[in-house]
């Protein structure tokens, strides 16, 4: 058999790995560029602050922007404490057993279920059975159920990654389990936990299937959490799918992309500030 010169293998590896990275970046830039190119011309102040007219053919997307803020926000507010408490309980208060493994397996499965299934579940459970109707509340609860597994698993990983010695030292100084969680484990796991929350925010902002069945698609500005609403993702879907307006669809998509970028940038900034503050 021919033995390859390790130098060439090394060069080949660098080429393949580097090439994959460049390709990924190119695809990403292409998508963003493509959508911004088509969408930015539509993006005016009126488009952002105006109400839609004629099903969205004319006018702005203000109610959809509000829907896209409120729904994920509410979902995160519901899912984050639940998810963090669950992961703390699983990793700190239970011993590794068949049951914890089963729970972990279950959450992993839930994380992989297509969102439309969550949409149907939310429709049957929240909208119909609990008689919440198509509303912000139904939508937020459905999104919360959908992102819960991600938050639990990423938080759990982050908590497990906190060095064992920190726990030991904390206990050896007379701290209780809960004090150790509060003062040592959660602060050190925070960057990982925040990453999970960011992923979940991104996922809920972009979500259509789970939302359209549960929050509906009303174009009116909601006045309470019991009103139906339409998110930008749903608006985009309806505009494009029903051929209502290509331009406004891309305008909505561009707004959505910029919003997601802004959310991520803010999160990174906040997190770096937090880490810098703790270190100094």
């Amino acid at each position: 058999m021919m033995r390859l010169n390790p130098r060439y293998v090394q060069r080949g590896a660098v080429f393949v790995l580097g090439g994959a990275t460049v390709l990924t970046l190119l695809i990403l830039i292409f998508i963003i560029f493509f959508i911004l190119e088509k969408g930015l011309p539509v993006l005016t102040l009126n488009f952002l602050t105006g109400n839609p007219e004629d099903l969205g053919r004319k006018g702005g997307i203000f109610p959809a922007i509000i829907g896209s803020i409120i729904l994920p926000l509410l979902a995160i507010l519901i899912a984050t404490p639940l998810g963090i408490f669950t992961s703390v309980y699983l990793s700190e208060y239970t011993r590794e057993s068949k049951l914890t493994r089963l729970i972990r397996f279950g959450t992993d499965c839930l994380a992989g279920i297509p969102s439309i299934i969550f949409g149907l579940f939310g429709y049957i459970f929240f909208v119909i059975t609990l008689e919440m109707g198509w509303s912000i509340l139904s939508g937020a609860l459905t999104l919360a159920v959908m992102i819960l597994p991600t938050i639990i698993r990423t938080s759990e990983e982050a908590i497990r990654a906190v060095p064992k010695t920190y726990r030991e030292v904390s206990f050896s100084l007379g701290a209780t389990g809960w004090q150790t969680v509060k003062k040592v484990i959660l602060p050190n796991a925070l960057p990982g936990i925040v990453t999970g929350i960011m992923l979940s925010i991104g996922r809920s902002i972009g979500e259509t299937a789970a939302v359209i069945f549960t929050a509906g698609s009303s174009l009116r500005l909601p006045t309470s959490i019991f009103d139906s609403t339409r998110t930008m993702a749903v608006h985009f879907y309806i505009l494009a799918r029903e051929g209502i307006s290509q331009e406004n669809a891309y305008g909505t998509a561009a707004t959505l992309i910029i919003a997601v970028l802004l959310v991520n940038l803010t999160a990174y900034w906040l997190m770096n500030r937090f880490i810098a503050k703790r270190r100094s």
Partner: protein
Amino acid sequence: MTTEKNKIEISGLDLYYGKFHALQSVSMPVQKNLITALIGPSGCGKSTLLRCLNRMNDLISGVKVTGKVLLDQSDIYSPTFEVTELRKRVGMVFQRPNPFPLSIYDNVVYGLKVAGMNNRKKMEEIAEKSLMGAWLWDNVKDKLHHSALELPLDQQQRLCVARLLAIEPEVILMDEPCSALDPIATMKIEELMLELKKNYTIVIVTHNMQQAARVSDFTGYMLLGKMIEFNVTKDIFTRPKEKLTEEYISGKYG
């Protein structure tokens, strides 16, 4: 060895990690304001025994302990003994320096905060006193709010001592506290231990027989989970009673 001077009394202590019998009927006194050293080859149970004294083994699943450990005559394994209270009285310095990724000041006052203190002025006073007690004050007094992780290793270890002194323990357990340090830093910690023994009772685990001979008053030699010989340090090193002890200190194995 009069009893009222015994800060800690271990008698008939057995410990199992699951099925593994790691400590076998160990008995040993720890006298007040003296340094007691535990020596023995790797894996003989020195750390395990040390961690019984502040019940750190409770954190490991599947550990079973029987026998008695008396701290000032009361049994620390009795159900009525509050374990967080015990750990405030019997503190621990670990093998590797392990400050929290917090500022130097926040490290020192950690134990005070979990004990419920929130008087800032008082905490600052205690922090200064503790850092002085660990001979670290002059090194860090101008950078109390810098990260503890910026300190060199030996200062990190003394910070861990200061963090412990802040909660005013009665007993200090040290598990190979110098194994990550160079000889000069080791000497400094040893001197510090001799100073600390005026106010504290110290139990130290060490691999380094010279260290045990230099600093300790009593020494226990352990082998395979058993306490082979316990005596005044000088006697252990000059005229051991047991053949096994003699073999170990003469360097035949270990």
